[in-house]
């Protein structure tokens, strides 16, 4: 196996008795767009700060092309970074902000000028060079921050929730911008966010953090379709968790009994359960059908409320056991509307697309 580009080895960071990061290990190939996703306090930012050099890890190592970064001070790491808050230098113009990393590297004036122009055009702010950051919108400020972080062609770009202070529309606009810049520059990006949509939209791979550990790492599709734990399943996308009792497993296909007494077989599992073990069955809202299909299982429910969401209708239903579940049938509108009319009925799901987790 070839040497990975950036490698995080058994990284651990403790603040007193609180361990923020538990022995995290990841290898990141060159040109990758990797997102650290997780709730706040899950250790994703702390990991990023250790790479940037803002915090010294308790143990473990960070290697860039095989060389440890830990003894290198931040200003010599040659890493680019965009921050959550606007960290532009308020007393400098936009152009001077972008020029700053080149000035402190004592690059010749002509090169600085050329590079600043190139960067400002990369983030589409060519005509803003003489303005001060205070006169820019939040989105424009983050684009300047992006230009500043890329001006010295760093091999790695760290982004710490760069869009969290922006409104939804701007966020989407700059997400597209970030993807384009990743494509055009080929820079390796480590991106931290707590927003699953952002993670799914932007990254090649996602590392999902929980309590200082990586819960699962993979593509967005992996995490959505093959969640390794109930936590992953509930964090990525929407899920319903139905209490169930495990009866038996044959060839990786389980039979369970739901709370209303109905028995479902053909549930896919990748761990062992004992007979009678309490479990939870995860079914995505969009996995429900209003009509039975081949090999589907039925669930008796009562429709409580429906809401129209444009491309899809969302239904709140209550199971016979009294649990409220979220249903977003993927059949066409006419059918959905027709199907929703009666309040008590059966809905259906494919057991092979559902997951069983220990309770």
């Amino acid at each position, binding site marked *: 196996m070839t040497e990975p580009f950036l490698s995080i080895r058994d990284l651990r960071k403790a603040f007193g008795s609180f361990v923020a990061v538990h022995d995290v290990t990841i290898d990141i190939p060159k040109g990758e767009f990797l997102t650290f996703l997780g709730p706040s306090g899950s250790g994703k930012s702390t990991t990023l700060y250790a790479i940037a050099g803002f*915090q*010294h890890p308790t143990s473990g190592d960070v290697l860039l092309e095989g060389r440890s970064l830990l003894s290198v001070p931040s200003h010599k790491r040659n890493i680019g970074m965009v921050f959550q808050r606007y960290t532009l230098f308020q007393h400098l113009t936009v152009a001077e902000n972008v020029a700053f990393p080149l000035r402190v590297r004592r690059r010749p004036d002509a090169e600085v000028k050329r590079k600043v122009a190139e960067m400002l055009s990369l983030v589409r702010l060519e005509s803003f060079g003489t303005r001060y950051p205070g006169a820019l919108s939040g989105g424009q400020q983050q684009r300047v921050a992006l230009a500043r972080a890329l001006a010295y062609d760093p091999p790695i770009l760290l982004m710490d929730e760069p869009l969290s202070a922006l409104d939804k529309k701007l966020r989407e606009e700059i997400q597209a911008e970030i993807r384009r810049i990743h494509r055009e520059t080929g820079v390796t990006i480590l991106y931290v966010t707590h927003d699953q949509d952002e993670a799914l939209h932007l990254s090649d791979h996602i590392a999902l953090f929980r309590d200082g550990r990586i819960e699962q790492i993979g593509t967005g599709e992996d995490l959505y379709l093959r969640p390794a734990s109930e936590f992953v399943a509930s964090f990525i996308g929407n899920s319903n968790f139905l209490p169930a009792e495990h009866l038996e497993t044959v060839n990786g296909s389980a039979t369970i009994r739901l709370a209303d007494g109905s028995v479902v077989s053909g549930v896919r599992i990748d761990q062992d359960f004992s007979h009678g073990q309490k479990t939870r069955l995860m079914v995505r809202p969009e996995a429900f059908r209003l009509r039975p299909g081949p090999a589907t299982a039925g669930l008796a429910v009562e429709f409580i409320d429906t809401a129209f969401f444009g491309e899809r209708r969302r239904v709140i239903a209550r199971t016979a056991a009294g649990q409220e579940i979220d249903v977003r049938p993927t059949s066409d509108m006419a059918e959905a509307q027709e199907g929703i009319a009666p309040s008590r009925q059966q809905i259906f799901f494919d057991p092979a697309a559902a997951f069983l987790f220990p309770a």
Partner: protein
Amino acid sequence: MLLDYDRLGWLRAALLGFTGLVAAFLLLPVVFIVLLSFGSSRWLAFPPPGWTLKWYEELFADPAWLEAALTSARIATMAAILAVAIGLLASFALVRGQFRGRNTLRGLLLTPMVLPVVVFAIAIYAFFLRIGLGGTTAGFVIAHTVLALPFAIIPITAALEGFDKSVEDAAIVCGASPFEAKLRVTLPAIKIGIFSAAIFAFLASWDEVVVAIFMASPTLQTLPVKIWGSLRQDLSPVIAAASSLLVLLTLSLMIVTALIRRKLSK
């Protein structure tokens, strides 16, 4: 990472060392004067050849010192009460008033703080000589109220700006009269500001030297005037004893302030 305490490296040691030196510099005269007041040398030799309480005995034996302290306390209390009362009323106008020249008015009311006090001292001295208030307690109180007013206005306006007016409006909607609403809702909410104002105003008068030197008469002397007079004669250790008591007073005032602030902010 110049603003990250944990990542400053050797620079932190250097800056902390420097800060320690400056703190020692600031503390030096205060500690020194207290030690000196217990030293037995009339010529202020340091370290003193022995320890004694005789300067304190001399201080308390001279009724002029106690009288001066009582005069100062009386004047400072009256000036502080007046400055806080007048300043509180003015602060409502300065923060909430919607009239032209509000900023000019603010500037005018704060001017006594920025004008060199010696200019005000001779001006008010001449004025009081003419209208017959020279050397009177009333004259002292008026002059010190003028000087203390900015120190009352600044913390009160700051507190008032941080207070949401709609809470007071809500009390009025609930049936309180505007006066009652201010008394029961607004004043309790800005009590820390009022308390700071009282402390600052008191200290502004209590420590005031320049106006007092001009205004003082043989029968009406504040404590700073008494110290000033002694200082100009000789550097007697009795002054060190008086000064140490003032340091003790400052310390207790700081502790009381800290305690009351903690209690009020709960």
